[in-house]
């Protein structure tokens, strides 16, 4: 999880095993944001309340995309952060997003430092996420039985 403004980012460095979740209980994009914000909150609790975190994610979400392969990447930035933190939420049955007209199967929620010098790393991460999580991988992850299994698959690909 340690990123010190390195240009390249690996998921194993920013995603912990315990931050991978499988849930079929979430029914909407908003619920993904709420759930994700609750799970990632511990990393920012020193300078931000949960309500503020959720509101910020909601605000930024107006401009977020759901890609056609079912990948959703909600994210926001904080000036207080020095590293990237993330949670991964797998929705095996899919969540219908009315706005995009697409089903969300995988949500990679992350927080990154709000520093101009970090923005290249931020962009690298975004392109890396979309490069890793192709439709084929998402389909596989939808069938896993546990977060651990999902985590092993993801880190295994990175090797």
């Amino acid at each position, binding site marked *: 999880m340690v990123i010190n403004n390195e*240009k*390249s980012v690996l998921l194993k460095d920013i995603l912990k095993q315990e931050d991978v979740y499988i849930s079929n209980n979430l029914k909407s994009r908003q619920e993904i944001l709420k759930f994700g914000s609750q799970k990632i909150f511990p990393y920012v609790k020193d300078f931000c309340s949960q309500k503020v975190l959720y509101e910020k994610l909601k605000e930024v979400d107006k*401009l977020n*995309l759901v*890609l*056609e*392969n079912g990948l959703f*990447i909600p994210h926001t930035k904080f000036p207080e952060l020095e590293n990237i933190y993330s949670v991964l939420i797998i929705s095996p049955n899919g969540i219908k997003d009315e706005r995009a007209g697409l089903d969300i199967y995988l949500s990679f929620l992350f927080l990154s430092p709000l520093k101009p010098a970090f*923005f*290249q790393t*931020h*962009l*690298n991460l*975004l*392109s*890396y*996420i*979309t*490069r*890793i999580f*192709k439709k084929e991988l998402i389909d596989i992850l939808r069938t896993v039985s546990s977060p651990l299994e999902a985590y092993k698959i993801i880190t295994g690909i990175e090797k």
Partner: protein
Amino acid sequence: MKEKIKNIFVLSTAMLSFISFWKASAIVLCDFGSSAYYAGGIAAKSFGQAYPYFVLAVMLFSGFLLMMYIESSSLFTRGGVYVVVREAMGKTMAKFSVSALIFDYLLTGPISSVSAGLYIAALLKILLPHIGISWNISDRLLAMIFSISVILYFWRENIKGVQESADKNVKIILFVGFVGIILFFWSLFTIWQKGFTLPEFKLNFTDEALGWAKDISWLKPVGLIGIIMAFGHSILALSGLETLAQVYREIEDPKIPNLKKTVIAIFIFSLLFTGMLTFFSALIIPFDVMISKYSDNLLSGLAMELYGPYKLKLILKFLVVLSAGFILVGAVNTAFVGANGILNRVAEDGILPESLRQLHRKYGTTYRIITLVAALQILVVILSGGDIFLLGEAYAFGVLTSLTFDVLALIFLRFKKKDEPREWLFPLNLNYNGYQIPLGLISIFLTLFIVFLANLITKKIATISGLIFTLFLYIVFTISEKKNEKKINLKEEDKGFEEKVNLAGEQDISELALKFKKENKILVPVRNPNNLVHLKSVLESTDDNTTDIVVLYVKVQKGLESSGASGVILPEEKELFKQIILLAEKYGKTVTPIMLYSNDPFYTIIYFAQSINAGKIVMGVSGSFGAEVQLERLAMYWGMLKRSDFKGAIKVEIIWENRKLSYELI
């Protein structure tokens, strides 16, 4: 994923290719330089043996007018007398000025090609008896037949587009220059061998040359008045300068420095070729011989009167006639280019019917305008009966009127647009109260205006035909303008816009990508005609010799699979393409505008960039998203679409006023 993109169109107009200053000089000289072949003879017939002084004086004066065009071009990339006069003095005066200019262009083709025909006729008269052929065809009839053939030939060439003609013009000027050098030095040799007597500076006007002045007792053609009249009879040697303003938009980067080189090249060539060769003709050919034998083929006469063996002189005469054929015929082309340019400007303003600007489907040229010009020129040839002196008399009207308007307009603009940046100013200015009082331009204007008044009185046919034609065209423009205004008021659906720019369909991006062969490629997505700061930045900083500049407009259409993407351009899109073309012309850089239909612009930009192997994407900032979100979306699609064979990274720049963000997608 590929279904996100439908229907790809490449925008083409004849105006997106740019030419070197050599080609620009050649285009102008093919008109301006061609007057060497007939100006001296026409002037001599008008006022006698002082003609070489006046032709030389006109050539020296042309230097000032060429400088005037540098200043006007620095104000208007798409300039010329119509635009300059319109900006300075309004549409009414602009309509008058352009009517006169069109009169000029409509006479350029006929006078040049008839003159070439007369040179050929004179040569055939000498050559054919040598091979036993009896030649009884009238010179004028042959000249007319030749002239019409040439007009038809260049009608076809211009339908195909300017670039082709510019290459030919360079070859013509090179050959003419070669013949000119021989004439020049052989003339010097003749003068050295035979000696010379300077022609008498004595003005003997014919009755025709005096026009109405012969009936005005106080208007005696002596002294200063006589000089002004004689200058007026020589002024037709100035024709072709307006073409410089039309050609400027096509001059490659850096524009003003290249324009200056063009001006210098034109001035030196015409001073030596028209000015000095006419002078040598006067020194070498006895005046009475010139008038009786060579008045309509002066340089042929010079060749035959040089000192040397007859056979060699005959060969030189043949070369002179060949050069006359080439350059005078080239002037016909220049008239097409000039007339087409000015009528396009006028049609853009709604002063001519929009339908006239319809583009040829294959070549992207305004073929209806070109055809109209050809038809009118042929009519002039027929009406003149091949009489070069009649044509010459009428010719000066258009030349002088448009030049006078042009200079006057520039003077106005010094006051009206005093804060407008100008890369160059006509010299001799007085700085007063923040204004640059143009003493130099005022002097030029006064000279032209006085000569114009003199010509009105002395050239009956020119004045009558010129005024009638100008008035007729003015009425046509006014009626058209009113009709076009009505159309706008009634909010009729505009059917004409999709035809202003030519859209050539492409089957596939991968096929299109093969067209981009330069070492580097820059992709410039555009959307808003008022937000092209990034395109301007690319044009300022990129060498288009090594870089393909691809301008991409993504037409967003939802429900793409069911829609019919027909290539219809909406008015706001027309404005976008127009601004792109104007910017490309301003910087003289070649761009390839592409329009394609998609339901996802960011996806399309990345997909396209990869397909053409772009090294850089340069965008303007989006008012909807902001620069960071734009970059994030591009990064996401980059990751999603990146091909394994695409090595390295692509640079992305977001540019807006005084700000630039630059990152890489790896």
